[in-house]
Structure formats: structure tokens, C-alpha cells
């Protein structure tokens, strides 16, 4: 009985792999986005066949890394502000770091996308989905890069003895960018999670 079940599973997996082979390479219209991502991640090749999870892992690692960079800047502001008794800035910085932690946690524990069973109700990713995913990844990385730049500017402003209001504004801008990035990133779960039903 066990051998029968294993044989059936092997047949289903084989059929599924044949189905997956029909997934194309990187479409031409998303090539600019792929090139843009490759500026940051040289090993990124889009969601080509057989490299989907690796690409996903690369993107997620990059977002986490960028988030950590922004967090480090904000943490420096936080520490210095606390030690110099500028508690209002320290509180704002703490809120921003908490938001970045949430983004990192979301990215770390996000959906990868699975090879669902052939007869399951879930639909596999189509070419249009993958195109959207590549564009989405590009936009997320762009946003998180902006957040790093803003955090860097905030730290620079803090060390340049600029007014508390300017520093606070920059930190809050960074937090806003991180929040947008978080929401934007979460929308990719719809694509990778296979939540949509198979078209009938």
C-alpha cells in the first residue's frame, strides 16, 4: 500500500514538473526592472525556472539587510539622543526602530510559495504574476533604499546640530517609508501564497 502511494505521488510530481517547465524565462518587458535589481543584487535573475525560491530568498535578504541598515542609523540617533537627554527625539527614534523590526519580521516570516499538489485547488504562478512580482520587488527595494537614505540624512542632521524638529521630521519620514514598504511587501503574499483559486 505504501509503495502504491509513493508511486502515485511520484507520478503526480512528475506531471507537475512537466507543467512547471512551461514557465518562461524573464519576460522582455520586465527586463529593466531585473537590471535595476541586479544593480543591488548581482545574482538576481528574476523568477526563472528552478530559481524561484532562490530569487525570493535573495530579495528578502536584501530587504532585511536594508532594513537593518536603516535601523542602525536610527538606533544611533536614539542612543545619542537618550544620553544627551533629548527624550522627544529618542522616543520618535524608538518608534521608528520598532517599525523597522516589524518590517524585518514580516519579510523574514513571509510566504515563499510552494509547489502545491497537482490536484489541489491552488493555482500556480503564471507569467503575468511573475512579471508583477519582479516589478513589485523592484519597487520594494527602491522604497527601502529611500528609507535608508532618509535615515542616513536624519543621522547626519542629528550630528550637524540641526533643529529637533528637522530631525524628528526626517525620522518620521523614514518611519513612514518603512511602513509603506511593509504594506507594499505584504501584498506579494497574494502572488506567492497561491491564495487564489484555480481558474475553472
Amino acid at each position, binding site marked *: 500500500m505504501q509503495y502504491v502511494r509513493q508511486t502515485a505521488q511520484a507520478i503526480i510530481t512528475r506531471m507537475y514538473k512537466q507543467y512547471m517547465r512551461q514557465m518562461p524565462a524573464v519576460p522582455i518587458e520586465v527586463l529593466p526592472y531585473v537590471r535595476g535589481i541586479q544593480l543591488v543584487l548581482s545574482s538576481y535573475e528574476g523568477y526563472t525556472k528552478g530559481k524561484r525560491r532562490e530569487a525570493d530568498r535573495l530579495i528578502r*535578504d536584501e530587504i*532585511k*539587510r536594508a532594513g*537593518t541598515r536603516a535601523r542602525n542609523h536610527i*538606533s544611533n540617533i*536614539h*542612543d545619542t539622543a*537618550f*544620553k544627551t537627554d533629548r*527624550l522627544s527625539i*529618542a*522616543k520618535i527614534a*524608538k518608534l521608528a526602530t*520598532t517599525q523597522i*523590526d516589524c518590517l*524585518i*519580521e514580516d519579510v*523574514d*516570516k513571509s510566504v*515563499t510559495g510552494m509547489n502545491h499538489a497537482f490536484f489541489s485547488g491552488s493555482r500556480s504562478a503564471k507569467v503575468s504574476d511573475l512579471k508583477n512580482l519582479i516589478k513589485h520587488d523592484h519597487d520594494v527595494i527602491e522604497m527601502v533604499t529611500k528609507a535608508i537614505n532618509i535615515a542616513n540624512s536624519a543621522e547626519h542632521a542629528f550630528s550637524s546640530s540641526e533643529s529637533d524638529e528637522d530631525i524628528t521630521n526626517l525620522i518620521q519620514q523614514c518611519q513612514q517609508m518603512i511602513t509603506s514598504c511593509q504594506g507594499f511587501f505584504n501584498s506579494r503574499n497574494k502572488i506567492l501564497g497561491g491564495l487564489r483559486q484555480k481558474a475553472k
Partner: protein
Amino acid sequence: MSNRYKWRDNPNILARLINANNLNTWKAQEVVLKPNEACAFIVDGRIGDILTEKVVSNIAGGFNRFIGEMMGVTAKDRRLLFAMTGPADISIPFSSNLPNGTKVNGFANIRVQLRSEDLPKLLNMFANSAPILDRKRLAEVLHNELMMRVITPSLAECSDEAMLRSSAFQDKFEMRTEVELRPTLSTLGFTILKAFITSNQTDNEKIAQLQTELAAATNTEGAHAEALMERIAIREAATLRRIECEVNIAKAEAAGKVTVELQSELKELRKQEAQWEAELKRDEGRANLRMKESSHKTEQAMALFEQVQAKKKERIEQQMEHQNQRMDKQNELQMKMMEMAANNNALTPEVMQEFLRQQTAQKAVDGPGGEFEPSADSSKEPTCQSCSKPIMAGWKACPHCGIAL
């Protein structure tokens, strides 16, 4: 079929360093790394890949590796560093004093996270300690530093219990923890996510609580008593009202009986009254009838009286006319006599005086104004016996009182 290797058999374990050389078996072993788990490979003293969300097969064993080791083509030293990458709460007990001397006991809770890229930093932890890191061990590592650099300074700024419970204190504690413990924790690969303090009740708070409880108990008792009194008052009022109502009912019943009796008496009285009224009406009718009869007689008498008066007036007028005629004749005669005397120049003052004297005497004979002079016995004319008013002879009834004469 391969064996599943479990690196963690206790939820308190956060990380574990495993010497893969000790896992040599003939059978292959695999590890399923879940999303909150990561594994760093340290091969021949170098940090290798950090894996997560993956099935690592042939992790430490298998026939191929056995052969490879026999041939000396595999790594000489293989270590696996497993860790949980999810947030972990560390509770560190503390005991300190506030500036006012109040003793404060409790726990400092720190939420830390080990991120997969920081996993190799855990080697600093395992350099001089057991290869297992659990929450208790991490709390021990952090205890002294936390006490000296975070808790004691934080409590020193706390003037009283109210400030200890304030949000500002918690915020400041969290910020201080992050500032002071970040170097240490980042050395070990941990990231601080959250920190807060949980302190037990202080002695002052216990006293305040006791006072509040006693006051509340007193107030409760007072409220009960008030409610009871109010209830009794309501019952009393209800009872009094009921009694009053019963009395009123009894009064009404008694009054009803009296009313019935009075009503019967009233009926009798009304009956009597009606009888009297009927008799009165009858008498009035009779009187009216009698009055009508008497008025009829009076009218007849008045008519007769008027006839008599009219005849009397007529007779007086005839007498007056007759007298006037006679006076005119006498005046005419006297005028003729005077004219004749004047014609004969015999009209002297003595003649005039004699003329006036005769004329006065003539008037005295005729009476004053020629009116009817009553006779001397006119004062003895007949009067009505009832009203004593004068009546004429021949009247059948008195014109004043209507009595038959």
C-alpha cells in the same frame, strides 16, 4: 529513509552548538529548518552557510561521508550552530530600592531576537560556556549588567510608587535598556526588540491597598445599611399607606351606610316637601281665584264710582255755566247802569263805592267762584266700615277695599 535529527527538545533552548563529528552514523540524518530556525555551518573553523527554511539532508552521517572520511576527503571539523530566530522573552528578577527606601521586587522583561545573519556571533557565547543557550542562561549573563546599568539608575530617578507605575518610567526604562545593553547583546548576536519592567507591590502600595480595601468595605457596609434603611422606610411607608387605605375603606363603607340612611330620610323629606308644595300650590290657586273674584268686584265698583263722578262733574259744570250766565247778565246790567249813570253825570265816588259794596255782597251770596259748596253736615258723610274711607250713598261696594257695603 533517513532519520530526523532534533536539535531542540526544550522550548527554553534558544541556541545549540553541535559537533557534527559526534553524529557519525551509518544512516543519513536530516534536519528540517523551520522559518524560525536557522543553522550556521562551521567547517574546519570557518563559518559557512547560514540556512533556514530548508531541509538539510545528510547533515551528519551517511555512508558516503563515512567513506569520505575513510579516504580523508571530507572536512576534519564540522560544527553546526542551531538557533531560534523568533523573538524570545527573557525575564530577569531584580530587587532594589527607591530613593525613599521602599523596596521594589519584580522582573525586567527583555524581548530579544536572534537574526539569522547574526547567528555566528553566538560563538562568542559558546566560547567559554556550555554549548547550549537557554533563556535562563541568557538571563544569568545579562543579570548583573542589567541591574547595575539599567534597573538601579532607573529606580534612582523614581521618586515614588506613582512614578514607578507611570508610562514615562517604562519608556525611559526601555530606552535605557536599549542604550546600555545593545553593545553586549549585539556582541552575542541578539537584537533588543522591547523591554519593560514588572514590579510587585511595594509595602506602601500594600498599605494603600489595605486602606482602600478597608475604606471600600466601610463604604460597602454603609451602602448596604443605607439601602437597608431605605428598604425599611419604603416598607414602612407601604404599610402605613395600606393601613390608611384600609381605614379609608372602612370609613367609606361606614359613610356609605350613613348615606343610605340619610338618603332614605331625604326621600321622606322630599316626599313631604312635594306634598307641602302641592298643598301650597293648591292654596295659592285658591287665593288667586279669590283675588280674581275680588278684583272683579272692585272693577265693577270703580266703574260705578266713575259714573257717579262723571255725573257729579257734569252737574257742577252745569251749575257753573248757569252761574256764569247769571254773572254775565248781572255784569252787563251793572255796566248798563254805570253807563247810564255816567250819561247822567251821576257817577260819583259814593255811587262807585256803593256799586262795589253791592257787587261784593252779590258775590258773597253767589259763593266763592261759583263752586259747589258742601252742606254743613257734609262732614258726616258715610264712610266704609272696613277702610274708613268716604263713600257715597247708594254705593254697593267700597271702591277702596272692595268690600260689599
